[in-house]
């Protein structure tokens, strides 16, 4: 995934494009994150002004939801499922392996800024777990070897 460096003018344009939607806050935050890979602090007052809400309100929304990052992610994002159905086929062990392999904890990014590891509670792929979304692409039936292979592909 390729993200733009933070750019207030581009952010203003994105905010403007979504501001007239009903309940525009989440659509704006998603659009910003999609473009920049995270939601920059500077965006908060800009959104507040566009939607005629307080900064505190927007800040509250950004921090309430697990999806929104406050710092740029690595070039690739691996969202690993932690929920029960995946647990029943080894997701806990897989998560431990993934953390060791990448040298990060949840939400951490590898030293080379390549890969960010995020937890997720269910991807609706529960019949063939353990599951993950790698840069938005679904993968299932993961084990340690399949995880390592996927990571090697991201680093290639």
């Amino acid at each position, binding site marked *: 995934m390729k993200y733009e460096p933070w750019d207030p003018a581009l952010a203003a344009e994105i905010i403007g494009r979504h501001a007239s939607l009903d*309940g525009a806050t989440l*659509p704006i935050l998603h659009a910003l994150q999609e473009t920049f890979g995270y939601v920059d602090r500077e965006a908060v007052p800009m959104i507040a002004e566009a939607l005629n809400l307080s900064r505190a309100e927007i800040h509250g929304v950004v921090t*309430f939801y697990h999806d929104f990052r406050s710092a740029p992610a690595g070039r690739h994002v691996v969202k690993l499922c932690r929920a029960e*159905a995946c647990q029943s086929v080894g997701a806990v062990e897989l998560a431990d392996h993934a953390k060791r392999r990448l040298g990060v904890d949840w939400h951490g990014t590898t030293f080379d800024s390549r890969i960010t590891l995020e937890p997720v509670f269910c991807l609706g792929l529960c*019949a063939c777990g353990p599951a993950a979304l790698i840069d938005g692409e679904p993968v299932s039936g993961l084990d340690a070897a399949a995880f390592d292979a996927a990571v090697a592909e991201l680093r290639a």
Partner: protein
Amino acid sequence: MIRIFVPKDAQAVALGADKVAREVERVAAERGETVTIVRTGSRGLFWLEPMVEIETADARIAYGPVKPTDVVSLFNAGWLAAGEHPIRVGRPEEIPYLARQTRLTFARCGLVDPLSPDDYVAHGGYAGLKRTLEMLGRPEGQTAIVDEVKASGLRGRGGAGFPTGIKWSTVLLAEADQKYVVCNADEGDSGTFADRMLMEGDPFSLIEGMTIAGLAVGATKGFIYIRSEYPHAFRTMTDAIAAATKAGYLGSSVMGSGRAFTLETRLGAGAYICGEETSLLDSLEGKRGMVRAKPPLPAIKGLFGKPTIVNNVLSLATVPWIMANGAKAYADFGIGRSRGTLAFQLAGNIARGGLVELPFGPPLRELIEEFGGGTRSGRPLRAVQVGGPLGAYFPQELLDTPLDYEAFAAKGGMVGHGGIVVFDDAVDMAAQARFAFEFCAAESCGKCTPCRIGSTRGVETIDKVTAGIEPEKNLTLVRDLCEVMTDGSLCAMGGLTPLPVLSALNHFPEDFRRAPALMAAE
């Protein structure tokens, strides 16, 4: 021109369906075969995915699971003429897993092109809306439609099982300048994927159901709130809305009736609590997803303070079938007060995971053993969690419990959204109880103390138990915490977390007594 159907359901894609589609296209071109590849949803037989179907003169013939490396040999075997091959499974409808089902809500899923309104209509779609529009032309038309939904016995498929017709009737009777229909597509429960499958495989049935709901109660605008963990469902649903609008099924004059109904999709942002309907409404309004106190009901004061129908994907997507076939035909399925069918979802440690739509009432064992084929690991089954993270863990001894709302509740369980998660004997039930508290602590909206603080205390206390620190005293504390959470929580997040915890404790006490007891003084 031979049509080849390859699923683009997210589960099928996770198993390689996109690669298979590309390889089929490549090999067909190489051999000069003129084929059209149609990307469908999934039939829900996931152990056979990617399952590719070939259209022959009299039937579709399925092959699966297809790997990209199988494609050349499939062409060599003459699959375009239904030729023999080790992975040929024959007519999908004759596979026992599918043949034994009653597909009403999922009748078209995996069969049709999800983005073609024409294909939808060719397979019986929009018959329900047509009848709805006819009924609207008669006096008391709206009441008659709501009565039809009431008479079907349809209860909310999101978990709580509230009668859908009664909810609609409240919204119909509410006076307002604007009303809304909101579809809850947050499907946060682990072990569930029916909403996802339907949105990816037959999105027009949801669009039609919401349109009928809107016309029935006088709402002109609808929103579908889809969790961000479902990027594929979000794209398909958004594209299907555009296609339906273009074809005149949505917009200022639905099917030329002069009546308006429009739809928009919205993306959640990774918060389980936003599946709770009032939290979802706050989220849709652009706020933090805090649970609201009820009353007022969303049916009276919902989205932006206006009367709002909030229904699960499957509740809404079942309405077209009911309107097309009549309330009685639907109510004839099921048992007791659980009428119609439920889309059960077989997940976790299961040999044949997938979607099984059946009339209410089969015993849990039938689903797991006859459909699911037992555990995937081949080891003995030890526990089953039904109804998502807030559902109880059942031991072997309770597997004969029939799957209907009341019978399941009588055994301390919850059918919920129909997710069935199987665990083999490697499971540590103390760890599962701990996870239930941990999940609640992570996902609580934070409004009430018992839920917010109690769940964190729960994690710490279970840790003490498993470390062998005063286990009896701490287990008593776990039970006390559960009681406080049950009694003092505003919504089912805090209120039902005790269900998995206590069922683990009651049915599997040995797992909580593994550590050698330490002295209290240590």
